């Protein structure tokens, strides 16, 4: 037996020992994560839906009676009349903000789902690749000149 500075057999043994715990096996993903919460279910969005509509008139229930109440009602009506165009604009603006947030949350969920689906597909594809590689180990005694013909298709990455 020839003597070599670096013995390939020993190196192979070492490589196999070092990597004994690390084995590449086909492990298909089990599914999409169950803890994923859609943005559309976010509590802040519910709050915005409940509170986007600003009041356009004074609420008599909060004013009370008596002279103080009459004066407050008078000033309140005056204030609402003066601020009516602004409040109307503000209300429209808030309504659009809420709708925009709805749309963003919806889109966000769509993208998150698409990304998850893609990651799922890629993980599944990697698992198929691993399985395929294990099945189609190199032809150990095949002559290079002979074409074995078509084999199972490997997964497309």
């Amino acid at each position: 037996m020839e003597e070599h500075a670096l013995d390939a057999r020993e190196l192979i043994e070492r490589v196999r020992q070092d990597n004994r715990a690390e084995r590449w096996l086909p492990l298909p993903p089990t599914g999409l994560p169950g803890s994923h919460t859609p943005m559309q279910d976010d509590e802040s969005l519910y709050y915005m839906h409940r509170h986007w509509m600003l009041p356009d008139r004074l609420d008599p229930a909060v004013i009370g009676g008596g002279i103080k109440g009459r004066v407050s009602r008078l000033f309140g009506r005056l204030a609402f009349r003066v601020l009516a165009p602004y409040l109307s604009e503000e209300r429209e603006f808030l309504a659009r903000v809420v709708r925009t947030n709805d749309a963003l949350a919806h889109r966000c969920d769509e993208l998150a789902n698409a990304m998850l689906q893609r990651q799922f597909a890629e993980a599944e594809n990697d698992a198929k690749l691993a399985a395929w590689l294990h099945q189609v180990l190199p032809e150990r005694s095949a002559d290079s000149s002979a074409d074995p013909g078509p084999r199972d298709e490997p997964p497309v990455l």
Partner: protein
Amino acid sequence: MGRFTQVCKLSADAPTVAVLAPHWGGTDEVCWATRQVAGALACSANIHVITTQGKRPRQYQDGVFSVYELATADRASDRRRDLVLAALGGSFGDTTPNPPQNLGDFPSEDAFLRKLLVGGPADPWEPGGVHLTEIAPDLVVVADYRQVGALRIIERSCADVPLVLVPLAMDLASMALPVFRPMFARAGDVLVFTQSERDASAALLGVDRVRFVGLPLAVNPSVGAEPEPHAGEDRDYLLVILGKPFWPQGSTAWADLLRMRFPARRVAVSASDALVVYKPDSVVHESPGMKGASDLMRLMAWAYLTVDMRPGSLFARRSLQSLMYGTPIVVPEGSRAQEHAETGSGGLWFDGPGELVWCIEAMLDPEVHAALGSQGGRYAHDRYGSTDSFVDRVGLVLSGG
């Protein structure tokens, strides 16, 4: 003047050698090895080649060789024989040549098995007996130990002539089948090309009758002067030799695996119909219509390492050539190339995708890479790098040395 060209000066009383080979003139390792042996003998003998291949019976001159094509080979029969042998080998489940215990129950003269192994109802070697009688050889060489019919015409036409067997054993397990024993028993010398073939033959016959002749391999050193332009110039790419077409599949899981695991490295995939280079920036160069043997040598000479997915099953020629360039190899476990990686410590071998990756990772260490490269180069040059010693070793069968 090369020794192969000296045959024109053969004396009139030069011996005559008949080479019986099922295949002649092909490009695979078996045909190439057969031709090398015949060429070595042609330095000091007149060579007549009888082969069962061909479309119609004919005789022609192929360089220094007089070739007789019998045109009796039947691909279906060959395939059936291979299947029978694979089934027998598989059932005994052993890759050593030692006959398993239960083989004793297997009748060597079983007519059905014999018919299958001979090649069908008609023995394809039968018409060759006439030529063999005409040639009246001083020595007969049989290429491929499975040619049971060839032995039959030898016994009939030139029973006293010495026989040299070149087993061309790709399937070591079936060598021990009783149906092949008469061939080995009749052979005076057995010429082998690899250590595993030698060990298998020696286990059957004893060491003294088995002659390791290697094969005369040479590589063109000038390819080291200029890199393959598509693969790159920095000797940093991983070369994957598929040994089969890249198209129409267009993608290989092995190359994808290396791209994913070594994203910073270039991976050059050499297929029989294309060279595809995957680069770290995902630029892919495809060069369809690739690629001559010289291009492959250039790729091997400049590669960091060579991964040969389908090494030749007789002596793994490509792997040896890669070693001759000092490029270490990574090859499938159990392949004939593993012998070169293991005996010469010129590379590593793998038994699955994970091990392939680990082997390459180990070889990315520059010290490991340099040691394996230089050791493999020494091994390949010492054992396979000399035409003269090959011719001398083969020539000994003529002198009886």
